[in-house]
């Protein structure tokens, strides 16, 4: 672990490693956001509630995720179905 922490975010001796870590992190962030928004949707959360926790507008969340998620889960959100049953 010491070996790892020493090179945290590359350090000035290797800017490329640091910059590449940023790229990797950005890609991971996008994938993780998509997964967690999907998980929340499946759990029956509204777009408004998801947006609130993410700290962005409902429109922003909807624009970025609704198309993809609605394609994957056509019809009612799975979580909501479960609740009304």
């Amino acid at each position, binding site marked *: 672990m010491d070996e790892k922490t020493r090179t945290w*975010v590359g350090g000035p001796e290797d800017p490329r490693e640091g910059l590449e870590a940023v790229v990797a992190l950005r890609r*991971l962030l*996008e994938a993780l956001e998509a*997964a967690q928004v999907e*998980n929340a949707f499946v759990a029956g959360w509204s777009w408004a509630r998801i947006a609130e926790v993410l700290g962005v507008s409902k429109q922003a969340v909807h624009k970025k995720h609704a198309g993809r998620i609605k394609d994957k889960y056509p019809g009612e959100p799975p979580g909501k179905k479960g609740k009304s049953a």
Partner: protein
Amino acid sequence: MMFRRLTDRSRNCVETGFQEARMLGHDSLGDEDLLLGILRADEGIAAEALSSLGVTLEGAREESEEMLSDALDSIGISLEEIRREAGEAFEMRVPDDRRIPYSPRAKKALVEARKKMRALGDNYLGTEHILLGILRNEDGAAVRMLISMGVSPEVLEDRLFELRGRAAS
């Protein structure tokens, strides 16, 4: 402009490169994705040179994923752990509704490919020119991937010209 004189195979290689980029979660088309595109097109001198040196599509994909995972490791993040915790919804894939641009390195590879085409006196831009263009990015992800798969850019270039000579004769 970027597509002038590209052979169908080269066009296909760029197209499949974009598909590979999307699948691997790359938010731009990297030069490594062009390399994957060549491998997936799997015809022509470039793919032949690569496969004769043991570079496979599967191997190159794995190498690309490993580079991501190594970069995250360097800042103390385990991709495996995150994959496990985020559950089935987690995938690196870039959603279909998001556009993926060319990266500067991919653009440069295609510009260099055109220069190579001219220098060689060819009137078509084939996958071999694209591969030569990719190799010009000495610091690029594609070259580093090849090196870690045990393939030196010089040897690959030699093999490419060898196969080219054979095809011409």
